[in-house]
């Protein structure tokens, strides 16, 4: 653990250190009049990471029940999948979770390629892996800045976005967009990468480890952060399995579940990378998982830049794409967890049903049970480490 020389007293109880007044409702001996009130963490709140509403029944500062209310950014993605052709749905995929847009496009494109049996040339696969991992780092940078801003540290946000701008410049040179790229196509990618892009990626991979070390030195070992995150918000592996929580949530609970390793897709089996897993199950574990994941992504990009072959970037795709009737699934490891696309085709050029199983939906569904009995700031710290993007939940 970084900063191991400072002793952090951690009695592991959710009510924090001794001396803090306990909840009166949970104390049956208490003679203080007992009453709960409902606090509305409204759809507009700086810590809500978007339009999430949480109805919190509170006893003082303790949460007796936190019920998330969602749907405030429901943008009808699944319905839109049914009234446009396969290719016209691609811009939607970037906007489901805009912070890791490449992964989401990858899943939809992969599902269609599975159904229509389209071959993807190797150079396109390498470009997909490089851009996906760059996107993962960019997403984790936003997560890191937002989590620390929720905890009260406003400076890391500036550092995180500074590094993120380097990634965005690379991806903008490649596909023209900064945030909602629509870079992958059925059968490959739409644009080949030039030497500028590959050289820029190499420079970024060399530049980033020193920055990550800076973040660890300044933030991860910081006593305030450690007191805010260690022992806070325990989520067990069994709870993750029951709710379907994936990604850093389940890896921070000790289970090394990463779709890239357990259910490999694309060319990930060719790369040598670790799946960072921490067994404690608390917010600090989830924090460390994401920080370590950024280092592993840099490793993957480095190896991909070494091995990327020359060649075409688009395979053969029929003019009018029709998939054989049936259903097809494709799962990717997005920045937030497992993203699954299930498409049902009836043989036409328009999908019959597009189901998007998003990681933040399952990750948030355990919030009600996991936050019972916590004080409000701890619950918000836990929500920050769940890394929610609300349009990902509402689709």
């Amino acid at each position: 653990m970084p900063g191991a020389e400072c002793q952090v007293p951690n009695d592991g109880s959710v009510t924090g250190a001794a001396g803090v007044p306990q909840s009166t409702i949970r104390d049956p001996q208490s003679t203080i009049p007992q009453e709960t009130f409902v606090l509305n963490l409204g759809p507009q709140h700086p810590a809500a990471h978007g339009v999430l509403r949480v109805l919190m029944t509170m006893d003082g500062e303790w949460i007796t029940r936190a019920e998330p209310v969602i749907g405030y950014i429901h943008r009808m993605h699944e319905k839109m999948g049914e009234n446009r052709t396969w290719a016209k749905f691609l811009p939607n995929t970037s906007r489901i979770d805009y912070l890791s847009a490449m992964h989401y496009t990858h899943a939809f494109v992969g599902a269609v390629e599975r159904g229509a049996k389209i071959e993807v040339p190797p150079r396109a696969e390498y470009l997909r892996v490089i851009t996906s991992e760059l996107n993962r780092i960019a997403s984790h940078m936003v997560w890191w800045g937002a989590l620390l801003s929720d905890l009260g540290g406003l400076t890391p946000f500036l550092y995180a976005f500074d590094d993120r701008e380097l990634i965005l410049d690379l991806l903008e040179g490649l596909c023209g967009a900064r945030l909602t790229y629509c870079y992958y196509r059925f059968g490959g990618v739409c644009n080949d990468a030039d030497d500028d892009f590959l050289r820029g990626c190499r420079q970024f991979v060399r530049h980033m480890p020193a920055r990550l070390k800076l973040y660890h030195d300044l933030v991860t070992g910081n006593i305030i952060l450690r007191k805010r995150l260690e022992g806070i918000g325990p989520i067990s592996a069994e709870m993750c399995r029951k709710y379907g929580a994936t990604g850093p949530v389940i890896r921070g609970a000790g289970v090394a579940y990463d779709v890239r390793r357990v259910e490999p897709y694309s060319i990930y089996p060719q790369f040598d990378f670790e799946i960072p897993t921490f067994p404690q199950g608390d917010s600090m574990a989830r924090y460390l998982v994401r920080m370590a994941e950024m280092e592993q992504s840099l490793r993957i990009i480095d190896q991909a830049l070494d091995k990327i072959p020359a060649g075409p970037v688009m395979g053969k795709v029929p003019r009018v794409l029709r998939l054989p009737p049936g259903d097809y699934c494709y799962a990717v490891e997005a920045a937030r967890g497992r993203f699954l696309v299930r498409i049902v085709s009836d043989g036409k050029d328009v999908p019959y049903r597009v189901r998007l199983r998003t990681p933040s939906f399952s990750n948030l569904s355990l919030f009600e049970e996991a936050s019972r009995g916590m004080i409000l700031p701890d619950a918000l710290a836990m929500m920050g480490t769940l890394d929610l993007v609300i349009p990902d939940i509402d689709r």
Partner: protein
Amino acid sequence: MNPTLEQLCEQFGRLVGPAPAASAAPAAPPAPGPVQRTDHAAKGYDLDVSVAPLQVVMAAEILDRSGFGLDAVTGVDWLAQGQMEVVYDYFHPTTPLRVAVRTRVPRAQPEVPTITAIFPGANWHERETHDFFGLVFTGHPNLKPLLLPEDATFHPLRKDYQS
């Protein structure tokens, strides 16, 4: 514990019973049985189980005992056939196995028992499927709208939905 496909096939086979008899016409292909192995590379899942609506709870129990986690609950509206289909996807955290359990209900009376008691994560998935299709998950503790406004009475993903 790491389950194998054989164990699952055997347990599901006991749940759903034997495959239906071959059809009378000699040239027709054999009807697919209720428990089918599929090619992961072609479909994305390994086992495809068709159950009766009342058997989804026992199917969920089989998968829970084998260590699976709930991935998604998908509703599909087959308007032409007058049926609605519910597909439950399950993933396993340590093996690459993926199982899809599907069931069909008539459109006129779309009721399926809830699996919330086994997988609490199904609470939200079933609420969303109810929102979009009007499928009623009997025994669900809280079947209020999740993604649509609280007072919504329409079910937008039905094929006969007109706004």
